[in-house]
C-alpha cells in the first residue's frame, strides 16, 4: 500500500519557520496537487517527502513506513523536476536506465522496462538521442520515463510544466493525468497554476504561508472555499471579493447599492463588516440588477467575454458566455445567480456557515 501520511510536519531554517505544522493524508493511487502562491512552502514540502530537505519535526510515512530518516533512494519514490534534470551526457535510454542500473538490475530487465516506458510515452524513436537534441515536451516526457521505469510507490512532480509553452502545457497536462491514472500510482504534484490544480487533481491541498488553507476535491474547494484566500486563489478570473456591511435583510455594497441576501446564509447582525465573494461567472447583467456597476474594460476572448467593472471604489470582473459590447463608463446593473453568494468574516477571513439545506 502506498498511501502517504504527513503529520504535523514543520520546517525551519534557523529561526525562520517556513512550514508550520502540515497534516495531509494521501490515499493509494490518489492524484494530489499542492498549490499555492510562490513561497508558500509547496516545493519545500515536496522536497521533504522526497528526502531532499531535512524535516525539522513531524513525520512523513510512505506505505505505512516512517521515512523521516530514510535516504531519498530508499523511499521508493521518483521525482520529475521543473527543469527536467536530465543527465546531459547520456542518451534518452541511458537516462531512463540509470536508476535501474544502479539498483543492479540485469541488462534484460532494464531493456524490457525501458522499452515498455518508451512505448507508453512514445519515446521509441528518440532512445539514442541526447537531451540537447530534444524539444521541451520530449525532455519532459523523458523525465517522466525516468520516473516510471522505476515503478515507484509515489510520483513527485515539481512544477513540471512551467517551462513549456501554453499549448504544450495543456497537452502534457492531459498526458500526465492520463498516465498516472493508468499506472494507478500515488502522485503528489506541485504547481502554482490553479488551472493545473483544478484540472488534474483528485484532491487539492491549498497552501499559503507554510500552512494548509484547505484540502478537498477541486470542485468542492471551488464551490465551498473555507476562507477568503482559497476563494480568491482558485478560479480564473478570480472571485470578486468586496468589503460589505450587513444591514437588515441584505448587504450594503461599495458605492451604496443594496444586495438582498439569498437566504442561503443566516442573517448576520446588522453593522457586521463582511467580505462578499461572487464568482465572475455568477454575475449577470440585468438592467435593474441590485449591484450598480460601471464598465471599465471589455475583453472578448471569442468563446466568452471578460468585463472589468467598478463597483463603488472596488473593481470587479464579470465573465459572460455571450458576446457583450458596451462603451467604457456605461452604468450597468448586475445580479448574482441564485445561491452563488459567499460571505466571509471581514476580520478572520473565514467563510460564514451556510444554512443546512
Amino acid at each position, binding site marked *: 500500500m502506498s498511501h502517504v501520511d504527513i503529520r504535523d510536519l514543520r520546517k525551519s531554517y534557523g529561526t525562520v519557520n517556513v512550514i508550520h505544522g502540515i497534516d495531509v493524508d494521501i490515499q493509494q493511487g490518489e492524484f494530489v496537487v499542492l498549490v499555492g502562491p510562490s513561497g508558500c512552502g509547496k516545493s519545500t514540502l515536496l522536497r521533504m517527502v522526497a528526502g531532499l530537505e531535512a524535516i525539522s519535526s513531524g513525520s512523513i510515512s510512505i506505505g505505512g513506513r516512517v521515512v523521516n530518516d530514510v535516504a531519498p533512494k530508499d523511499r521508493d519514490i*521518483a*521525482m520529475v523536476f521543473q*527543469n527536467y534534470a536530465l*543527465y546531459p551526457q547520456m542518451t534518452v535510454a541511458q537516462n531512463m536506465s540509470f536508476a535501474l542500473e*544502479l539498483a543492479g538490475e540485469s541488462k534484460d530487465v532494464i531493456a524490457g522496462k525501458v522499452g515498455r516506458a518508451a512505448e507508453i510515452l512514445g519515446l521509441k524513436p528518440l532512445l539514442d538521442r541526447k537531451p*540537447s537534441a530534444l524539444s521541451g515536451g520530449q525532455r519532459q516526457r523523458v523525465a517522466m520515463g525516468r520516473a516510471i521505469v522505476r515503478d515507484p510507490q509515489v510520483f513527485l512532480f515539481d512544477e513540471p510544466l512551467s517551462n513549456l509553452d501554453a499549448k504544450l502545457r495543456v497537452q502534457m497536462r492531459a498526458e500526465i493525468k492520463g498516465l498516472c491514472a493508468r499506472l494507478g500510482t500515488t502522485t503528489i504534484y506541485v504547481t502554482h497554476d490553479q488551472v493545473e490544480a483544478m484540472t488534474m487533481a483528485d484532491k487539492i491541498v491549498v497552501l499559503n504561508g507554510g500552512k494548509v488553507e484547505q484540502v478537498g476535491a477541486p470542485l468542492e474547494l471551488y464551490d465551498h472555499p473555507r476562507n477568503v484566500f482559497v476563494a480568491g486563489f482558485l478560479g480564473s478570473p478570480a472571485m470578486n471579493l468586496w468589503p460589505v456591511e450587513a444591514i437588515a435583510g441584505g448587504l450594503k455594497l461599495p458605492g451604496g447599492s443594496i444586495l438582498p441576501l439569498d437566504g442561503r446564509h443566516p442573517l448576520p447582525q446588522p453593522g457586521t463588516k463582511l467580505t462578499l465573494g461572487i464568482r465572475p461567472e455568477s454575475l449577470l447583467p440585468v438592467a435593474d440588477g441590485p449591484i450598480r456597476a460601471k464598465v471599465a474594460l471589455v475583453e472578448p476572448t471569442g468563446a466568452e467575454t471578460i468585463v472589468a467593472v467598478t463597483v463603488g471604489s472596488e473593481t470587479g470582473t464579470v465573465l459572460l458566455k455571450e458576446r457583450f459590447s458596451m462603451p467604457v463608463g456605461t452604468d450597468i446593473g448586475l445580479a448574482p445567480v441564485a445561491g452563488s453568494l459567499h460571505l466571509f468574516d471581514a476580520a478572520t477571513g473565514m467563510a460564514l456557515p451556510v444554512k443546512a439545506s
Partner: protein
Amino acid sequence: MRDHLNTIRKDPLLLVLWLALICFAVIWIAPFAFIVFTSLKGNGEIMSTGPFALPTELRPDNYDVAWNRGGFSRSFFNSVFVSAVKVPLGIALSAIAAYALAKMPGRFNRLVFLLIVFGTMIPFQVMLAPIFTLVNKMGLVDSYAGLILPYLAFGVPFQVFILHSFFRGVPKELSEAALIDGAGHFTIFRRIFLPISLPILAALFILDFVATWNEFAMALVIMQDQSKWTLPLGLMSFQGQFSNEYGQLNAAIVITVLPAVLVYLIFQRYFVSGLAAGAVKG
C-alpha cells in the same frame, strides 16, 4: 567558405578583425618559424641568410647531434614521467576537492575553499627557498616525488578554483535526480559531473601540461643531479655548452617545445569549448 566571405564583405568591422587576427597570428608564429628554420640549417647558412629564409640545404642531423650531445634521452624521459604523473593526479585531486567543496554540505567548506584559493595568490618565486628547505628535510631532493609534490601544491588551487565555480553552476536538480535514482556522491561525481566537465578538464589538462612541461625554476632548485634533470634544465645546460651551434641549439629547442605543441593540438578543440563552458548555463 563562400558564406564566410560573404559575411565578411557585408561587415567591414569583421574584415578589420580578421586582418588584426592574421597579423597577431603572424607575430606569434614568427619566432616558431625562425626556430624551426634555423634548426634545419648549417652554421654557415645561418650566418649568410636571413632568419626567416627557408633552409636551402636541410640538415636534419642537427636533431640527432643535439639529442645525443645534450643527453636529451634522459631529460626527455624525466619530463615525460613528471608530467605524466603530476598532470592527471593533480586534475583528479582538484576535481574531487572541487566537487566536495561545491556539492557536499559541510560547515567549513567556505573556509577550506578560501584557504585553497589563497594558494593562487602566492607567487611561486617567493616560495622557492622555503620549499627547498622543506623538500630537503623530507629527504626528497633529487627525487621525482620531491618535484611532483610541490608541483601539485601549486597546481591544485587554480584548478580547484575553476572547477569549483563550474560545479556550482551545475543545477542542483541534476545531483538530486541522481540521488533519488540511487547514486551516492562518488557515483554522482564519476557518472554525472566528470562527463559533463570533460571540456573544462581538457582545458585544465593542456594548461597544466604546458606549465609543468616548461617549468624551470623549481626543477632547477630541487633537481641537482643531472640524471634527474627535466628538459628545460637540459636545454639550459646545452645552451651554456654549445651556444655557437645555432642549428643544434634550435633543434634542441624544438625537441623541448614539440610535445607541448602536440598536446595542445590534440586537445585544443576541447580547450576552446572548455573556456566558453560555464559562461552560459547549458
